[in-house]
């Protein structure tokens, strides 16, 4: 194992840097820095997705036959790291990184031909219909029901925490098509056009003041049976497959490092009265930096294991857990570093289109919203408690 890149990899690194320098506009960069939620709004995020797609880099994790670039793990590492360093938009992952792999793995040829190109190009914008008000960590207890009626299903029920449902034109959802002996049985994976009559969306504001998630209601919504992926009743298998992508896509440390750098820059600035001169703050920055070093090294270990054909397994739970906890440590540190300026609330969104002078410096605007919204990191994608259950069961065998 080696921490340095070879000549080919360095050449690729220059290529990525060149691409970013050419395509990342100041507007995209500023909008990304001033977005305190997980994903960029579609106008920013999809502009970046289109640029990536033009370059043939729209879906780094896909097989070449479906439009993937055929990168080695080291190339993916370089791409993700350079993207994080440059502050590129956070493209909503629901299409490329989530429903894409499921359609590739379990979809029929018609579905692949129709949906995959539209995901790559950014023509379709996806949201995820998993959680329900009564089904959080116990996801397979879900109750949204799809009843067969000729060539259609009729769907009734509700989904919650639906990220960007208010922007999406499509949803992939887990719905109950029958009742089996186990609650995981009888679940189907279905693709829904968000313009179908009977769908309504209610915004949910998170504590940082952002509208990113929603509740979606289904009232006799008619969806063609042809929109089901894979077999009826086997949706839980496909849904779990997708969750592994949600948890362990594996390269989070570069973004964490940029997040910490922004906080350390503030701490070294006169805007915070040089917070870093307090040994307490300086040491906490080091503690978080060291945690990021450890996560980065674990990611590299997983990556090099994948290169030699080993299966990372439950380590994706470790990566998810540590990423979410460190993310929260970064945002907590940020809220402390800006001192009294943490008291100022800016209710307008988006922050990159304010039509007035904010009460605190622009560089601080996202700090407290990110801290507040960031509490969600240890909850979504399987709570930290669920991840610990997985580690105990899969890694420790208890």
């Amino acid at each position: 194992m080696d921490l340095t890149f070879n000549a080919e990899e360095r050449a690729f690194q220059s290529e990525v840097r060149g691409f970013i320098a050419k395509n990342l506009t100041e507007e995209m960069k500023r909008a990304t820095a001033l977005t305190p939620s997980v994903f960029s709004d579609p106008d920013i995020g999809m502009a970046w997705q289109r640029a990536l797609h033009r370059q043939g880099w729209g879906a780094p994790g896909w097989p070449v036959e479906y439009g993937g670039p055929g990168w080695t793990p080291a190339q993916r590492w370089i791409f993700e790291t350079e993207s994080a360093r440059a502050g590129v938009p956070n493209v909503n992952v629901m299409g490329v990184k989530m429903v894409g792999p499921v359609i590739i793995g379990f979809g029929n040829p018609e579905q692949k031909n129709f949906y995959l190109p539209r995901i790559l190009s950014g023509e379709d914008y996806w949201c995820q219909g998993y959680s329900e008000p009564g089904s959080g960590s116990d996801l397979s207890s879900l109750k949204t029901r799809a009843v067969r009626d000729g060539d259609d299903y009729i769907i009734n029920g509700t989904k919650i925490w639906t990220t960007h449902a208010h922007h999406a034109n499509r949803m992939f959802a887990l719905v109950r098509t029958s009742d089996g002996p186990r609650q995981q049985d009888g679940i189907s994976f279905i693709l829904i056009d968000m313009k179908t009559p009977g769908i309504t969306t209610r915004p949910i504001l998170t504590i940082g003041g952002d509208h990113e998630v929603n509740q979606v209601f289904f009232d006799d919504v008619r969806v063609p049976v042809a929109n089901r992926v894979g077999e009826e009743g086997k949706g839980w298998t496909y849904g779990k497959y997708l969750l592994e992508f949600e948890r362990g896509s594996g390269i989070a440390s570069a973004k964490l490092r940029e997040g910490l750098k922004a906080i350390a820059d503030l701490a070294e600035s006169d805007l915070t009265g040089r917070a870093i001169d307090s040994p307490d703050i300086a040491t906490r920055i080091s503690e978080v930096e060291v945690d990021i070093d450890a996560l980065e090294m674990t990611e590299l270990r997983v990556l090099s294991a994948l290169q030699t054909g080993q299966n990372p397994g439950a380590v994706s739970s470790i990566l998810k857990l540590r990423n979410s906890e460190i993310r929260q440590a970064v945002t907590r540190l940020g809220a402390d570093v800006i001192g009294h300026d943490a008291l100022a609330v800016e209710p307008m969104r988006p922050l990159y289109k304010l039509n007035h002078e904010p009460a605190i410096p622009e560089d601080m605007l996202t700090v407290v919203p990110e801290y507040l919204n960031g509490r969600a990191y240890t909850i979504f994608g399987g709570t930290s408690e669920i991840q610990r259950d997985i580690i105990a069961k899969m890694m420790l065998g208890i």
Partner: protein
Amino acid sequence: MANDPLGYSPDVWKQFAELGWLALPIPEEFGGLGGGAVEIGILMEAFGRGLVSEPYVATIVLGASLIDRCGSMAQKQASLPKIADGSLKLAFAHSERAARFDLAKVATAANKTAQGWRLAGSKIAVLDGHAADEIIVSALIHDHHGPSGRIGLFLVRATEPGLVISDYPRLGGGRACNIDLADVHLPEDALLGDGHDALPAIEWAVDRTMAALGAEAVGIMQTLLDTTLEYTKIRKQFGRPLSANQVIRHRLADMAMQVDESRSMALRAALKVDAAPVERARAASGAKAKIGKCARFVGEQSIQLHGGMGVTEELEVGAYFKRLVAFDTLFGGSAHHYGRHAQLGRTA
């Protein structure tokens, strides 16, 4: 073990020599194998798993490294092949009571004399000094103008008149000692190298050592995790194994995660031992701080999950825990190294 005046086995040391482990990091031209920090780390992790108490760190990781880096060709030729074949054991006497963990603070004085050098001062916490044939002593060089500001490293025979070793059983196994030097007279060539300030070499050697000790701590933690996991499967309370309780399962998951993070940090520090000084030092201090913190958690929780038996000398858990406490203390604990990491970050 605490009552064993030797603290290690000479037979085992001989086997280490036969297996090539003593030759591992020594350059090939001096009878070594030319291995690097990653290979040392693999060995150290295995030592940790078995709670080995042979003077490997003192002789090989500290002693041989310092001679290789600072010694003249003649000094290297005299010492390194003998270290590799097991016939020469070393120790490094550097820490002083007033210095705490500050590697730059040395009060022990080396005065230039007509015949060579005269050393006077006191050292503490010298790893395995009792087992050493020769001891590398750091001292502030005084020439005829007074203190020079340069630290020199001196190779002193353990039997040298004026050198008094007071050794004690070390927390977690092995031994350590305090050393008093009362007018120890040494020849000219006892000084390693040409008298350049040895502080950068000392920092380099200690950073390497912290990487190696980090790997050893990973092995110790892994054994504690394995042992504790096994115990929670067997031990039944309220009619079911301890491991059936979610609070226990989550504790074990946290322990496993911290062992894994520690493994990443030890490997990272090893991969950076030959990087530029600030990068190397930050990796070493980061690893020392993080692994120290994880070691306390894994060690303390291993005892907690073993219940009352964990607090007794009847189980090995306590011995492993004590070695982790010794690890965290050596060369400065977590708080010290987070502080050094922060300080280096601001000067970088």
